[in-house]
């Protein structure tokens, strides 16, 4: 052992000044959970207002602020940082590295996040209110008609982008440069693979988002006309730039989730992952396609027919690599010695519900049909099936799966199972009816609705409250495990789990793999 780095520093400075990937991962995870609760609180306001038709609780303007901030906080504050936290904790342990490649920058990319969200949340208190133009902030709603707080929103987005780019560069450098000898690319755990590709997507598209908000800033304050037809620009240009970022962004959210599921399902099926190589190629294929499908978000904007057709067919192609993945997960379980602990339950929940979300995505990809579905609750249902039952379920599975490794203590299995079933039921009660109201024509982002949608909306709201409540159970279970959970003695907490992180003691020591591990006996995933 070296003559320094024996353990963490004490007190607050440990967290403020840390360069340790585990500390930083922990901070990311707690921060993202706090944002998950904040964004969830916004969602509760939305569902409370929509509990019954008519204007009930909040002003329409405030309702718009809630939908906007809910989306922004969940996408940029909850889901993305949670997977970065997971990457921080796991990638060095999975590839046998002592830490992330650039530890101080790692700390920086975390610490600029909380102030950015503080600034974003503070817009709620500003004159003119918080941004109310939806999380996609289409011009001219976000330029000509925006409240003054939009300036702070823009800078918050800039900072989030800087954070994501630095975090991703770090992950790329770590994976490309820090693998233990013998850890070839095709031996890396799939979680590492999916994050490598995700990091590439982030470095490629976050700057484009920065460009979009910079153009907004210039249009608002310096009289440029990027998004104003009066000067020769085009509001639709905003949508193109935004979705050039936005579509890869949805894979940025879901690819690490794919990685998590690809670790957990083999562990509880006690079989190696089926089709490892095809999983890698499918991930790369999805990443490539994500760059050429962006305009399927804007079929109704008045694109030329040739454009509609191109984006329609390109979008449908995504079903192929995604299908490969679903097939591989199912085949991994086939004839496995399966057990159904909480991480596995969430993973199977992911598999079923994400596939439903994928199918509704396929429906939405059909341009003529999308003219009917566009901006209805059908879209809302679709993307919550992939974002909540996809990304959030897999994240939850990941926490249950690796918590014993992180803390050395076991969560309460019964409570975990209750959490799963309440989440699963609450989620479906919330979002399944939204398919129906959407197909029947209920528009999204409107605080009131026609009477025929009343029953389904009430169901949705009840489901949302149940789902929201169940997350408090999750929080309690995690804290209880950390404080007083049963200690795990074994390195290998789950008997089917494979990979370098399971060769480490539980809890994993503050510094691991200061010299690279020997890798000969490691299996190929």
């Amino acid at each position, binding site marked *: 052992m070296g003559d320094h780095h024996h353990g963490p520093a004490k007190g607050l*400075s*440990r967290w*403020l*000044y*840390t*360069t340790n990937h585990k500390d930083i991962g922990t901070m990311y995870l707690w921060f993202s959970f706090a944002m998950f609760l904040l964004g969830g609180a916004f969602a509760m306001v939305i569902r409370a207002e929509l509990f019954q038709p008519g204007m009930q609780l909040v002003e329409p303007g405030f309702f718009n602020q809630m939908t906007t901030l809910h989306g922004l906080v969940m996408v940029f504050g909850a889901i993305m940082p949670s997977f970065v936290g997971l990457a921080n904790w796991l990638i060095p342990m999975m590839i046998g*590295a*002592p*830490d992330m*490649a*650039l*530890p*101080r*920058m790692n*700390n*920086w990319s975390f*610490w*600029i996040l909380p*102030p950015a969200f503080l*600034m974003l949340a503070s817009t709620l208190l*500003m004159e003119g209110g918080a941004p109310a133009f939806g999380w996609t902030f289409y011009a001219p709603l976000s330029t000509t008609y925006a409240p*003054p707080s939009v*300036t*702070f929103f*823009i800078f918050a987005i800039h*900072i989030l982008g800087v954070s994501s*780019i630095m975090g991703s*560069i770090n992950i*790329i*450098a*770590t994976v490309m*440069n820090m693998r233990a*000898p013998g850890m070839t690319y095709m031996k890396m755990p799939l979680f590492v693979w999916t994050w490598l590709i995700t990091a590439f997507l982030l470095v*490629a598209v976050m*700057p*484009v988002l*920065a*460009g979009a908000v910079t*153009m907004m800033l210039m249009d608002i*304050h*310096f*009289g*440029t*006309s*990027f998004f*104003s*037809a*009066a*000067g*020769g*620009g*085009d509001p639709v*240009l905003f949508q*193109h*730039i935004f979705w*050039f970022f936005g579509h890869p962004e949805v894979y940025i959210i879901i690819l690490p989730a794919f990685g998590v599921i690809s670790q957990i399902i083999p562990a509880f099926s006690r079989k190696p992952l089926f089709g490892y190589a095809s999983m890698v190629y499918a991930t790369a294929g999805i990443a490539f396609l994500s760059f050429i499908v962006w305009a399927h978000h804007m079929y109704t904007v*008045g694109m030329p027919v040739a454009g509609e057709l191109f984006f329609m067919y390109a979008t449908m192609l995504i079903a192929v690599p995604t299908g490969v993945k679903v097939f591989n997960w199912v085949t991994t379980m086939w004839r496995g010695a399966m057990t159904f602990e909480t991480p596995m339950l969430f993973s199977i929940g992911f598999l079923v519900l994400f596939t439903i979300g994928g199918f509704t995505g396929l429906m939405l990809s059909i341009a003529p049909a999308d003219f009917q579905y566009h901006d209805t609750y059908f879209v809302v249902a679709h993307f919550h099936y992939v974002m909540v039952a996809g990304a959030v379920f897999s994240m939850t599975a990941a926490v249950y799966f690796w918590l014993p490794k992180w803390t050395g203590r076991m969560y309460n299995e019964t409570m975990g199972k209750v959490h799963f079933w309440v989440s699963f039921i609450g989620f479906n009660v919330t979002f399944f009816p939204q398919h129906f109201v959407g197909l029947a024509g209920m528009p999204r982002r409107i605080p009131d609705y026609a009477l025929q949608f009343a029953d389904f909306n009430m169901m949705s709201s009840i489901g949302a409250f149940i789902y929201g409540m169940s997350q408090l159970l999750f929080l309690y279970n995690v804290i209880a495990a950390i404080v007083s959970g049963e200690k795990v003695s074994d390195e290998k907490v789950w008997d089917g789990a494979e990979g370098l992180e399971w060769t480490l003691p539980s809890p994993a020591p503050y510094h691991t793999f200061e*010299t690279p*591990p*020997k890798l000969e006996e490691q299996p190929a995933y």
Partner: protein
Amino acid sequence: MSSAETSTEYEKYYVPESSSLAVRATIGLVLSVFGGGLVLNEMTFGGTHDTGGAAKWVLFAGLAIFIATLTYWFRTTIKENKAGMNSSQLSNSYVLGMFWFIFSEVMFFAAFFGALLYVRWLAGPWLAGEGEGGRMNFLLWEGFEYTWPPVITPQEVVGGALSQPIANNGAFVSQHTSMSFADAQAWYAWLPLWNTIILLTSSVTCEFAHRGLSQGNIKKFEAWLAVTVGLAIIFLFLQAAEYYEAYELFGLTLNSGIYGSTFFMLTGFHGFHVAMGMTMLLIQLIRSVRNKHMTSTDHFGFSASSWYWHFVDVVWVFLFIFVYII
């Protein structure tokens, strides 16, 4: 612990002790953007918050903290390197970091080039009534004809900001002379051509400096690097002159519709990057002359700066083609 038992034949990767650099840089960055936001809102909306002129001091304080911290951060890494803490593996991490940072910069410029090409190929013709998007002309901007560079904005065609049927961000008054190549007789007076020559030459001189350094010829390295920095400064002066010309003589401003928007944003961000690259190269020159930091085998600071410089040059080539020529 498994790591203690494995062999120690590998170089240890340098994981720095805990450090306050990140938190300090964060304070600087957040103060900068918060102050900047206050300043901008006071300028445009008459202020979301009444700061009584304090906003700009928040901005300046933030920038000062930010720049000071980054300077100190770079000094720290240089000292660590000189103290022999960096393994070859860490150096490789820096190389990867710089490469992917430049890639992210490429994508940032791609957004603005994308905007330019979209407007020129699609939105502009549609506004003038062509193709499937052409109804806009008949419904909103009747009489607008598309040319590039545009000689008139759609708003001017329909009678200015006041008589315009939909709201906008202000008055867009087109320039009377564009920056593109117009007079073949006076080609030598066309600044962008000179800027192209200067920048391409500077890439070559930068490469000469690199070769000098690789050969261990520090004199050669410093001389060519000084020439490179000099060329960069001349470029920036010429661009300042060009901007002056645009604003004062041609009526080309940020408000000149989409031509002014794309022209100033593309050349402006490029100019900013030239200034950044120039500063980076200048710092390497100072480090070499004053501190004798550069050796033929250990000069990542210069290598990274030179890659950045070549990147800036390549961007200019595209700018020259798409903004000035075509």
